[in-house]
């Protein structure tokens, strides 16, 4: 039989009906390879069906289960009990929602509101370059793609935005990354518009190079490096 651990979760709760916030302790026995989302499900099944939390794919691809565990923003669908115990050297964990948007209930935040920042950054190619005449698709050579392919792994889980040192008047590191990826993408031609978004008041000037974004990124993207490339002027001049 696998080893069972005595875990205590101190969960930040919020009831929007009476606008009351409190911290509730849940003690449970859990195996080392259970994920934190499994712990929440266990609490729902065995102790408290009213605890609200969110997840979707549970494969670290959708970014909807981001939370702060002992203050660190991460995806709870990929955090194992054993990993957490090693990471924080404790079996007591505070569980709190991300800070990028208002809390809807308990651990659920208004992701639609958080995504407004991404919509501002335009997460698509604004003005695609025409495909070459000899074919019907635009091919990117591997050497060019290698420069920014790491940044395309971003799933907009908002862990970086929660960890960022600048919490006000800032679109956030992932929104910056949205622009950086498209500026490095040879298919994008709206470079002037992109530069306006990236270097604007709520963009790069608000970045303090604390690199907390890189530190917490669940996809291990060196976000700060890509943002620094933009500061360094590594992209082509405005067209």
């Amino acid at each position, binding site marked *: 039989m696998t080893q069972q651990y005595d875990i205590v979760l101190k969960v930040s709760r919020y009831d929007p009906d009476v606008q009351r916030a409190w911290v509730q302790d849940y003690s449970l026995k859990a195996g080392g390879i259970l994920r934190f989302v499994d712990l929440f499900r266990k609490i729902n099944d065995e102790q408290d069906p009213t605890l609200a939390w969110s997840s979707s794919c549970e494969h670290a691809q959708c970014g909807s289960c981001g939370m*702060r565990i*002992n*203050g*660190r*923003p991460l995806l709870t669908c990929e955090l194992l009990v054993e990993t957490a115990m090693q990471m*924080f050297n404790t079996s007591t964990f505070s569980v709190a929602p991300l800070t990028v948007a208002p809390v809807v209930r308990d651990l659920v935040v208004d992701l639609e509101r958080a995504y407004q920042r991404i919509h501002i950054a335009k997460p698509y190619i604004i003005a695609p370059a025409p495909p070459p005449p000899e074919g019907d698709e635009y091919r990117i050579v591997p050497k060019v793609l290698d420069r920014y392919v790491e940044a395309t792994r971003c799933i907009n889980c908002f862990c970086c935005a929660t*960890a960022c*040192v*600048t*919490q*006000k*008047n*800032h679109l956030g590191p992932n929104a910056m990354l949205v622009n950086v990826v498209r500026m490095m993408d040879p298919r994008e031609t709206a470079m002037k518009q992109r*530069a306006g978004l*990236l*270097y604007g008041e709520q963009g*790069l*000037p*608000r970045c*303090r*190079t*604390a*690199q*907390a974004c*890189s*530190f*917490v990124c669940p996809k291990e993207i060196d976000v*700060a*490096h890509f943002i*620094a490339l933009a*500061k*360094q*002027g590594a992209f082509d001049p*405005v067209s």
Partner: protein
Amino acid sequence: MNARLYGVEGYLISLLKRSQTLSYYASSRGWGFVMAWAHRVAGLLLVVYVLFHIVTLTGLQEPARFSAKMAFLDNVFFAFLEWTLAVPVIFHALNGIRLILYELFGVRDEKRMLRWVFALSALYVCTLGLFMALGNQHISAGVFWLTTALAALLVTGGVCDRVWQTQNSLGWKLQRVSAAFLFPMVCGHMFFMHLNAKAGHDVNTILERMSGMGIRVIDFVFVVVIFFHAGFGLNTIIGDTVENNRLRTGIKMASCFVVLVFAYVGLRLVANI
């Protein structure tokens, strides 16, 4: 920063980790996050000190009053305070250079850079303490400031060359350029003032030095750059932390007003001595 650390560095990190708050943020956001906040706090301390420094220096217009002030400050307690001021000064300066190297020169070895910031800060603070304790060092003001100003111009030129063609905002660029200029100038200033007991405390020595045209020009530029850097730094902190538009604009205008008034007083002081 998760690797096991030894020696002075390991001891320093273990000391810092004793603070629950520092340990919490270092483990949940990384040391870079802690350094970013420390940079802000050190910057705010330095702004307050610069304003206080200008108020003290206005006494130079009445030498007797200035001498009385200096006599009041001439004791072990204030000497210790002056020495501890070197901590935010050198930390803010070196950490600023670390950030410039990361942002503009592509230096990504953060672990090594953080080590250098701690090691050089400790070296500067200890050397300054030694010179303050000895209090018997002498160097020609002209030679010292000419060398320091040249070094400042070289560093400034290097940063200017990197940052000027980028698409960053003008204020952002000027903040980096001014930081590059201030790095040798402020560190040099603090060092020079504590080489011997008279350099920073004796009214006649200070007046004689400041009346030279070369030193006056350097001081003039120094005051302009330092108040620009302080004012822009305050504005960024306000912009980063105050969400309400009206409140933010109000606080920014108030801080600009205070900085401009003190800059004017400082420049008038340099011009009239």
